[in-house]
């Protein structure tokens, strides 16, 4: 499998303004607009929100990983959303989320999907890495962090 950097792009990074978790997901998903990742953005947003409603993807440590596997996604990819103020994500540890990794995968990309989620999780468990990403000055700096995975 490729490095996780290969699944994102500087264009898929966004500083989030929304404080509501569903709105924040919708806001972050917009980075895929006009990109080859997803042919139907509305479908993606709906799937992400529905999934979020079943069980929170806020896994603690200030991170949330909303994810969805749908037909209209051609290539598996993830977007990175930063919220300095933090978003209430009903996380496991109850703390606000500052870093959202939004993973979108195609219906038949099951194995890559699980591998990518697993690698993102293990990489972001590293506290200094997490802090460097959240406190980065610009998108290039964030991407550089993933280059170092």
């Amino acid at each position, binding site marked *: 499998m490729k490095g996780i950097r290969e699944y994102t792009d500087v264009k898929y990074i966004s500083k989030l303004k929304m404080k509501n978790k569903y709105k924040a997901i919708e806001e972050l998903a917009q980075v895929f607009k006009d990109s080859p990742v997803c042919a139907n953005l509305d479908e993606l947003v709906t799937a992400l929100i529905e*999934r979020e409603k*079943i*069980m929170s993807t806020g*896994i603690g440590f200030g991170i949330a*990983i909303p994810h969805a596997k749908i037909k209209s996604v051609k290539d598996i990819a993830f977007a990175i959303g930063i919220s300095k103020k933090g978003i209430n994500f009903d996380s496991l540890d109850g703390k606000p989320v500052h870093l959202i990794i939004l993973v979108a995968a195609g219906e038949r990309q099951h*194995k890559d999907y*699980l591998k990518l989620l*697993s690698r993102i*999780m293990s990489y972001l*468990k590293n506290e200094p890495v997490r802090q460097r990403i959240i406190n980065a000055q610009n998108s290039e700096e964030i991407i550089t962090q993933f280059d170092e995975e």
Partner: protein
Amino acid sequence: MIGQYGRANINRAGSMTIRRKRYRNLLAGEGLPEFQKKLRELYLKSDISRYIAHIIFSLILGLFAGFASVVFYYLLNTAGRYLDPVNATSKDGVSPVIIFIIPVIGGLIVATMTRVFPALAREKGVVNVIKAVIINNGLIPLKVTVFHLFAPIISMGFGAPLGPEGPAAKIGSGMGSFMSQIFRLNQRDMRMYTAAGAGAAIAAVFNAPIAGVFFGIEVILLNDLKNQALSALIISSVVADILSRALLGNHHIFHIPVYNTGSVWDFPFFLGLGILCGVCSLGFFAARGFFADILDRKLRWKNPYMRLIPVTVIFGLVLIKYHHLFGIGYNSINEVLNGRVAVTTLVVLLLLRLVFMALFLEAGAYGGTFAPSLVLGVFLGYSFASIMNYFFNTSLDPVTFALVGMGGVLAGVNSIPLTAILLVFEVTNDYHFILPLMFVSIIAYLSMIYVHKETVYSKELRKTGIDVSRRGEVDLLGKIKVQDLKKTDFEAISYRTPFRDLLQILMGSLSGDVFVVNDKNQLVGVVSLKEVRQAIVSKDLVDLLIAGDITVPVPVVTEEDQVSVAIKKIETYDIESIPVVKSETEQFITGVLTHQDILAAYNTMLNACEIDQFIVDYSSRGETGPGQ
């Protein structure tokens, strides 16, 4: 008081008791010299007796099938000698009325035979021999054999442009079956000798023992080289051919002039001929399909007179101008090979023969397609080379192309590349053109298979309810329905289930698969242990995922589906079990079918089933069976 008859009975009973005692003593080896005793013990201990019996029965079969084929061949030749206008015109000329009337009379007799013996008439063709071997333990009643000895003689003797091999195979296998009935052999042996008899008859009729063996393997045994009938097939083919040569003479059917096999640069042209032979074969199938459609579906003519007489009338009229179309056509082959037929006539004859061959078969005449294929091949090959020479100034030898074309059309029309090569080799008794013959035969065969995707015999058998499409593999699983084998104890969870809970269920599941349903209880997909290994290894994912995240789509079967459909899907998707749903649209799970259960059922059926292994259940396929 004991009367005269009573005393006779006592005497008879007494002598029987003495005979029985002698027999018992003989079996025990009493009164035998030591050497003979040891020999007898060795004989009884080993299974050599079975081998000896097998060889003897194969020899007898060769004699039976060979003799019947010789009779068939002799009668057919005699009919041809008197009725073929080619033979007659050489003497004193034949009036067009007679030429016209001969096939019509033949048609009338054959239609009458079909009308009077409809059940026997239905058993025609090689396909019915294969059916008898597969589903009837090789049982062919003697009356069927006798009917198919005479009906083709009349049909072909009076001009139908068909060949003797279909009827010969029928007669040979009928003799195998008859012999097995006389000696009261068991079902397995009867099946074996019935199959072997077909090959023996082909060997005798064509003076081609190797082709006879391969005909048996390729056609009757459906390419099963491991079949135990193989040795019987070889022995009986050899004996039948020896008998045929002894009684009919070591004659050659074809008179081949001196020819040039050409050079390696001719092979592109052979490739072209191979493709053309394939196209010709496909044209023949298309013509058969077309006429079948007209006679069976558009006109709906069931009456044998209505079907056959108009065809013989048209044929009779055409025959006045093109008498080369009469009968099997070996005379025509010799005339063409010796350059006595113009190329333009040859092309017309090729088309007419192809059309009438298809017409006669569909109309209800009796005969096969081997010999007509040889004729078509000669016409095609000869005209192809001549046309190439004319337009492209090449120097292809039309005789070589004609000989090679025989194999091409034979392989294409009958889906028998090996038999085609060997039959042409044996009937021409010439090895020089073997390479282009092999090349053209296989190209023609592949061209036909490319379009039809299956052999002509598997196609014909499927129409009658027998599925041999999987290269003769036994389609036992096509006989049982999913509902007969499904289990109702299966694991199904909501797609909302957290992965942590799902993991517990998955670990406790016997099959390693858990089905996932939506809020309406409809199937969404499956979570299988091997698919989620990654999620289990990475403990971090346990709190992130729910069942819906790791569900993968799964194929389904309905209760009415055949188990063969289920196993195909299980193999394609590489899964351990497949959910059974109420219907494709509703997707409510009613059970599960596991790979293991299917294999267990298959093994049980394989042991139990010997006879009806190829039967297709029409009702479960939703197809229409023959005669329905």
